[in-house]
């Protein structure tokens, strides 16, 4: 079964035995939990679209291991075209779900590991790449969703892992056995963790020899013994428990993040992809982060939805012809397409690594993600400007349906006489959802911190640009002779 459909994916999740806590209580039925389910549906969309003729050209690829057709989320990029299609897939799914569909982080981990396991083997004669490829084939054959788990809690940010007062602030090995290792620690902010079949662990930062117990990478089934999930809250999350669905904004989809605790968890050797080769931790972080920065192509798709919503509310409010509204819509599009430029550019300017995997252009991937830390905020600001204050003062769906006051809501919140008040409420709730409700977690704060906070990209940009060459151009044009040092 190299390609699952949405129904098969949902059924496969039911077979997992995850230990999940939310609001202080154990969640036994994760798949049907009303707060979690929209996020499951968003991942399910990655399976659904792979089975649609009108999307399969982007959503599927040919495995370089087996030659079979597989979901692109399980694919190792074999060409620049693969990289470009990955960016397009992000936009497509962002627009389809209007939220974070969670599956990119696993794809990025797989691609980063395909490169770095090869590089470690080249230096040490180890067999991580062989192990990894066996694991990859298993992932591809079963069309699995993987959580890419990089971010540790990190404790005091000013200290290295071995300097922390609590040694568990970074995932580390606590025991080495004949058949594998035992690890302890946690991974924070894990996107889509509860919707994943597998969890792939990578170090968070580059490391020195003193930190070698922390320089580990491995993969486990998401329900391996000792793994505990504590679901993160999202703004407005409990609206999903309410009777109606209008106030949710997005009727179908959502995202989620969780704190994942590893309480002395056993990892067999065949699932270990890095073990104390500390000098490769930085390379794995950089490879994963660059791929993942490209993945923020998804925000272009969510931007498409928000622009569509802003234009719709402008029409409902009767202001669509005002020049400043038109101009704001143009500006939103300009910003959104500028984001698109970045994710397409870093893909098309990628290259082939010694492992054979195609890797994005890291400078452009970082520039792209830096833009992502800003533009969705401005696009949201413009959407809120166009929407008017009602997007945050609108009474609830229950008031709208109330036999006592519903008529007043209906009457006073009607704008364009040809548009039902309910439609106006729906589009306002969607704008609220994306710019400050549950989906704002993905569209805004994830844009800020996901794949690294803004400063992380600026450091990468400063490392990658060739300043000397720029100076040489400038000096030549104004007639400065090269100074002899």
């Amino acid at each position, binding site marked *: 079964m190299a390609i699952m459909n949405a129904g098969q994916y949902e059924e496969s999740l039911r077979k997992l035995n995850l230990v999940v806590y939310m609001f202080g209580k154990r969640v036994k039925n994760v798949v049907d939990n009303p707060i979690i389910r929209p996020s499951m549906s968003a991942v399910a969309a990655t399976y659904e679209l792979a089975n649609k*003729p*009108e*999307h*399969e*050209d*982007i*959503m599927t690829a040919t495995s370089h291991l087996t030659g079979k057709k597989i979901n692109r989320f399980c694919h190792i990029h074999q060409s620049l*075209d693969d990289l*470009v*299609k990955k960016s*397009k*897939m992000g*936009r*497509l799914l962002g*627009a389809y779900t209007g939220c974070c569909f969670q599956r990119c982080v696993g794809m990025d981990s797989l691609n980063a590991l395909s490169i770095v396991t090869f590089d470690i083997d080249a230096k040490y004669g180890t067999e991580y790449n062989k192990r990894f490829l066996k694991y990859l084939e298993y992932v591809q054959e079963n069309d699995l969703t993987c959580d890419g788990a990089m971010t540790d809690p990190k404790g005091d940010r000013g200290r290295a892992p071995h300097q922390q007062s609590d040694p568990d602030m970074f995932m580390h090995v606590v025991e080495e056995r004949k058949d594998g290792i035992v690890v302890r620690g946690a991974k924070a902010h894990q996107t889509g963790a509860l919707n994943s079949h597998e969890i792939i662990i990578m170090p968070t930062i580059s490391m020195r020899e003193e930190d070698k117990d922390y320089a580990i990478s491995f993969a486990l089934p998401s329900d391996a013994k000792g793994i505990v999930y504590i679901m993160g809250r999202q703004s407005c999350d409990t609206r999903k428990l309410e009777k109606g669905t209008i106030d949710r904004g997005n009727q179908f989809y959502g995202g989620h993040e969780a704190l994942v605790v590893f309480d002395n968890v056993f990892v067999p050797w065949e699932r270990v992809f890095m073990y104390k080769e500390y000098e490769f931790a930085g390379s794995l972080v950089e490879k994963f982060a660059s791929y993942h920065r490209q993945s923020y192509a998804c925000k272009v798709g969510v931007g*498409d939805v928000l622009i569509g919503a802003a234009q719709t509310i402008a029409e409902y409010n009767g202001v669509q012809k005002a020049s400043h509204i038109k101009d704001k819509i143009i500006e939103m599009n300009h910003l959104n397409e500028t984001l*698109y430029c970045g994710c397409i550019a870093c893909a098309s300017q990628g290259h082939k690594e010694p492992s054979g995997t195609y890797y994005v252009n890291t400078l452009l991937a970082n520039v792209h993600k830096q833009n992502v830390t800003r533009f969705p905020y401005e696009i949201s600001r413009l959407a809120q400007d166009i929407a008017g204050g009602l997007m945050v003062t609108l009474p609830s769906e229950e008031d709208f349906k109330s036999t006592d006051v519903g008529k007043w809501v209906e009457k006073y919140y009607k704008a364009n006489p040809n548009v039902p008040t309910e439609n106006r409420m729906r589009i306002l709730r969607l704008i609220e959802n994306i710019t400050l409700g549950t989906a704002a977690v993905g569209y805004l704060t994830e844009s800020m911190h996901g794949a690294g906070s803004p400063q992380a990209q600026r450091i990468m940009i400063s490392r990658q640009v060739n300043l000397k060459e720029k100076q040489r151009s400038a000096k030549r044009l104004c007639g400065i002779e090269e100074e002899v040092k």
Partner: protein
Amino acid sequence: MALKYCGGCNPLYNRVAVVKHIEKACGDLIEFVNPEHRDVVFVLAVQGCKVACADLTQFKGIPIRIITCVEDAERLVNEIIENNFLYEKGVRSQNSESRS
């Protein structure tokens, strides 16, 4: 006629609706099959924009018609209805034609 879509990341028109329109307008003059079908004699590539990125390598040697906008689709429909199109492409020969 095999139907091959691009992935539809940011299409400039509703590709699926346009294909439905072609099917409806042409009636039984054409039959769409999936790209893996053995008896594909012709390929309609429905591309969402002028980038036209659908991977068509599997159709080597088979005539392909690309549409990238609604107007392209209209032209195709007219050609099929006027019955020039399939003759021109050699898909049907005048002799073997039973319908007019």
